[in-house]
């Protein structure tokens, strides 16, 4: 066994030495050619494998880099979207507050700004809760307005909050008139969340697109606060009164800030509202 091993070693070393000697004595060409003939396909295969492996490795490395980059960009995108959302939200809030402040400044009324902190939006009751209450000397039936128009009235005052009955509440009634024709009537809320204007029937009293404002009768609301725009006229009834469906000028479902009219309410304020043209 040992002799066999040594024989194998000797044979291998001898072959190597012969190979080397043959090459260095200038007779390398046939041997080299023979070896090249055998090894060339192997070399080609190795090179192919090398290239494929390298290509796969490079592809994998690229993919991994792209994967990491993708993750990074996704995180960054998410962060930027959140930031953009915050900025947009802040800008919108800023815009709303500016409009509110502007209205408060130019309005010849004593007002107190308030923030909506809760909403009751069922069919039975439609109300908003404002962060102003007894501590701010808010009283029951205080008029609540926004830069777009009338919101409603305070129906309940608590220590730090007030509940505002909005125009669309089924129990809400506001004395009003048509801005163009001065036709008087009543604005009433409906259970389905719409507002209707009940008025005495006469020709040409109302047209679609007319703006209805508070009349100021009764001293509850200041005169001239925009309520809504006539969307439909219901003239099928033959009674003394006709009805018109109004589209409230204030988006009551999404309003966030309001003004509570705390002082004198007898002034006509219609000139201080920018009533959008339409209809």
């Amino acid at each position, binding site marked *: 066994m040992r002799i066999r091993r040594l024989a194998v070693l000797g044979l291998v070393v001898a072959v190597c030495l012969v190979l080397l000697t043959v090459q260095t004595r200038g007779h390398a060409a046939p041997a080299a050619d023979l070896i090249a003939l055998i090894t060339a396909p*192997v070399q080609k295969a190795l090179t192919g494998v090398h290239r494929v492996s390298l290509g796969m490795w490079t592809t994998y490395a690229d993919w991994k880099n792209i994967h990491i980059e993708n993750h990074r960009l996704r995180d960054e995108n998410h962060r930027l979207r959140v930031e953009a959302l915050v900025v947009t939200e802040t800008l919108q809030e800023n815009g709303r507050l500016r409009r509110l402040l502007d209205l408060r400044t130019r309005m010849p009324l004593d007002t107190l700004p308030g923030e909506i902190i809760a909403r009751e939006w069922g069919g039975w009751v439609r109300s908003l809760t404002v962060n102003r209450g007894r501590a701010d000397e808010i009283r029951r039936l205080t008029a609540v307005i926004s830069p777009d128009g009338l919101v409603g009235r305070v129906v309940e005052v608590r220590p730090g909050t007030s509940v505002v009955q909005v125009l669309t509440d089924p129990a809400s009634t506001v004395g009003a008139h048509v801005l163009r024709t001065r036709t008087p009537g009543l604005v009433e809320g409906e259970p389905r969340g719409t507002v209707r204007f009940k008025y005495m029937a006469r020709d040409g009293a109302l047209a679609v697109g007319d703006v209805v404002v508070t009349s100021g009768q009764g001293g509850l609301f200041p005169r001239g606060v925009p309520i809504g725009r006539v969307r439909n006229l219901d003239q099928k009834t033959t009674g003394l009164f006709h009805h018109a469906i109004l589209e409230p000028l204030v988006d009551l479902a999404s309003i966030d800030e309001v003004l509570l009219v705390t002082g004198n309410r007898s002034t006509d304020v219609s000139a201080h509202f920018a009533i959008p043209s339409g209809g």
Partner: protein
Amino acid sequence: MRGLLALTVFGGGIAQATIAPALRVADVVPDIPLIVVVLLALRRGPEFGCLGGFAAGLLQDAVGGGLLGVQACTKALMGFTIGALGGRLWVTQPLVQVPGLVLLSLGEGLARFLLLKIFHFPAPFGQLMTYVVLPQALYNGFLGAAFVFALTWTQARRGEA
């Protein structure tokens, strides 16, 4: 035996041609065929180590474009030596593996230099040892130890299963 020999030759050669350039550290490339020959010689004995080393070295010589037979001879010698000594070494210990492979690689480098010197190889010994043989020997030592560790771990897992 033939299958393993072919695997030694081609596996080592392919690894040297494909993985080794990717494993280059500070321009030092490990000698993967030598590591494979050592591992096979430890398991299969001197005869197998000798033939495997010859085949792997010959392929490296052919691929590298140098004198045919130099690496075939040195790797055959190393395969035979480690195959013969394997039973007496505590090769599962990293403290034996790393210095063992370093010494073996140094021995192979030295043998290659001496063999080439017979055929008037011009490179100075000092530079060759400092910049080529020693760094590669160190690299081989650590890479070989990692191979052995991976093999031992795989066998242990297989044994558990």
